[in-house]
């Protein structure tokens, strides 16, 4: 796999600590401030983190020390053992299974011929359209979102194929990363959606209505991303559309094209769950590469497995540590206190909606989507319903807010996934998603203002 690696290139100076560290320290200080802690302990701890960074420790270890320190020094009734316990709980979950499966399947398809065939098809069909491949990538994410309830899985599955292709066609790196991270976030807006299931169960709101409510906002965001892709790539020469070339790409890529068909058909036909779909796609990819394309050798398979292993080893421990910090936020009641404060202070429905959105965007920076949903939805929903909002509409608004949280540092899972999958600096990933964040904020306002789109 020829991924451009930022590690092999010479470093340009002046990048300083990067947005990541800055935001992480800010978030930590906000947390400690909210806990009513400042002082020597805090500054000493902050200094330790800076020292670790100066001595070039890997992010995983720095974040590990950060979390261990929060457990040992700041959280009430805690111990570093609980960090390990939380990490274990995070890894020991059925819903996380699809991540390794799609990583493995993605690596297999990328090294083999399936990815190539899919990309050829996408390129042939979008030839002549400015930003055609970007449009195709967005649509692929939207389609994949319809079978996966998770955003990181959507992003991984599509991104591992689309990103190298976009780079090869000369798309801007930043644009490509930002687009894939943003379009990948559709995973929790277009049904099925793990986030909406959690909202529904925690607030006793109909999950079916939430799912239906997410369709139009999801399509709207996809549409906005499509328009943006076209507008940003107006001058890109993407060749001319040729019906015969498109037809040839379909014939040549038949087995590869069957992949999404099997996945969608399997899930909507009731043959397997989204998690199992990941394993099935892996099996299918292996069979096709082994018996039909026959370009891969046994050594290639070994490489694919090791590659996936390392990617998992970079990604999942980070996710596990983040989940421990979320547990602390939950147990300490920090975010809950914010909700109570807002509910008491604001009565005007419009101001309330604005305040709650700001709160959720803030929470989206420091919490992972599922935990934020579980902790905050039962607190916020009654306040909003009291102010006259529909519980389904608010559920979709909340999902949209937390979806944006996938792209906001320091805890933004799509950022972490992009960093690991595309081998980029965190700060670079953050800068890549900025224009898309603006786009998504505009989208959020629309979703808030037009409840008719949802209910």
């Amino acid at each position, binding site marked *: 796999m020829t991924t451009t690696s930022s590690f092999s290139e010479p470093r340009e100076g002046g990048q300083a600590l990067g947005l990541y560290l800055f935001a992480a320290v800010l978030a930590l200080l906000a947390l400690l401030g909210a806990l009513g802690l400042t002082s020597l302990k805090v500054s000493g701890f902050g200094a330790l983190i800076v020292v670790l960074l100066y001595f070039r420790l890997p992010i995983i270890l720095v974040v590990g020390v950060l979390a261990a320190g929060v457990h040992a020094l700041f959280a009430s009734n805690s111990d570093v053992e609980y960090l390990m*316990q939380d990490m274990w709980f995070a890894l020991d979950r059925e819903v996380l299974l699809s991540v390794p499966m799609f990583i493995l399947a993605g690596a297999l398809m990328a090294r083999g011929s399936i990815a190539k065939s899919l990309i050829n098809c996408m390129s042939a069909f979008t030839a002549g359209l400015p930003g055609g491949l970007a449009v195709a990538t967005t649509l692929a994410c939207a389609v994949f979102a319809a079978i996966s309830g998770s955003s990181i899985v959507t992003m991984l599955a599509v991104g591992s194929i689309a990103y190298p292709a976009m780079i090869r066609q000369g798309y801007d790196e930043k644009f490509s990363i930002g687009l894939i991270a943003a379009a990948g976030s559709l995973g929790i807006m277009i049904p099925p959606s793990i986030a909406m299931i959690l909202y529904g169960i925690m607030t006793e709101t109909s999950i079916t209505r939430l799912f239906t409510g997410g369709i139009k906002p999801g399509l709207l965001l996809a549409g906005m991303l499509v328009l943006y892709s076209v507008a940003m790539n107006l001058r890109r020469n993407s060749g001319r559309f040729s019906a015969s070339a498109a037809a040839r790409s379909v014939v040549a890529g038949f087995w590869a094209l069957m992949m999404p068909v099997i996945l969608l058909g399997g899930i909507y*036909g009731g043959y397997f769950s989204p998690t199992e779909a990941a394993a099935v796609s892996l099996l299918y990819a292996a069979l096709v590469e082994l018996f039909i394309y026959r370009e891969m050798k046994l050594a290639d398979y070994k490489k694919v497995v090791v590659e996936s292993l390392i990617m998992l080893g970079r990604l999942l421990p980070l996710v596990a540590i983040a989940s421990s910090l979320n547990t602390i936020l939950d147990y300490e009641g920090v975010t809950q206190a914010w909700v109570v404060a807002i509910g008491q202070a604001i009565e005007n429905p419009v101001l309330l909606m604005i305040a709650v959105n700001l709160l959720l965007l803030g929470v989206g920076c420091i919490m992972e989507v599922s935990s934020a949903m579980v902790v905050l939805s039962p607190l916020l929903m009654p306040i909003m319903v009291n102010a006259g909002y529909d519980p389904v509409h608010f559920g979709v608004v909340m999902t949209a807010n937390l979806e944006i949280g996938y792209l906001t540092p320091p805890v933004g899972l799509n950022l972490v996934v992009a960093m690991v999958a595309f081998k980029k600096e965190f700060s670079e990933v953050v800068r890549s998603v900025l224009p898309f964040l603006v786009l998504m904020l505009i989208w959020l306002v629309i979703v808030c203002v037009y409840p008719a789109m949802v209910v």
Partner: protein
Amino acid sequence: QEAWKLGQVGAPGSGLAVMGDKFATAVTEASGGAFTVERQFIGNEQEMVQQVLRGRVEMGVTSPQGMGVAIPAGTVLGLPFLWKSDEERDFVVQTKVKPVLEAIYEKAGLKLLQISSAGYYGVFCKVDCSDPATLKQQKVRVSATVPSRVFWENQQVNPVQLPVSELWPGLEQNLVVAADIPLPYYVTTPAVESAPHFVAAKHFHADWIYFMNLRKWNGLSDEQRTAIQEKIPTSQELTAFYDSEVEKARRQLVDEFKGHYYELNDEQRAKWHNNIETKYPEILASMTEEARSLYEVIVAAKKEFAVR
């Protein structure tokens, strides 16, 4: 003043959460101002139990299945169709099982405070399945426990293990056509729309066990311990409250969601029962020695109840 947590799985506003609040308030009052207890939602029962074991969360409440991670013996209470009547269950659990469990909990580092009921499981389906024959060879969601597996195998379904979060979309996409949970939980899920037929099979009973970390318990004064045991809601109070929640859920299902509720007559119930006792040895064989001796206690107590 210390802030203690009572870990539990019921979503805020649910009957289980209300019961948790009642319990937490009673313990807070009994502490005489030494500490407060607040309900803490923890979505995974086994994780909650592991946290109480270590004292990270002080108290908890869950089913014997949720406790299985630390107290495997208790899972024997999850045998299908274990009870002939609520009266029998009440007698056996409160007078015979509870003392045995108390000792087992203590050995594991936990203090058992109260056992109440979180109702019976029912089966919900996409079509009327009051006769289990309609589910034969059909894909049914089976939870990952041996009693559940054996019960459903006894009905010759095609068992599918799904995490609960994948069950709801799975029902909509016909990945499974039926599953089983207690009625009050059922009415809060999208299953009321995708699988609106609820059959009160009452095959599993969920005991609802309140417990706390033993070190924390031993750290309390004698007065505090006595006060807690006196002030906590009785099993009858908690069970009666939950029964009213079940009735509320039944009305909600029929009136609000236009779903279907099937109470079974003896003949229909016999079909669900399907001589499941003949499978008890298989289930018991998968359990621990301690579970099997607890089962002997239950058998003896049931005989004693029958004589009375």
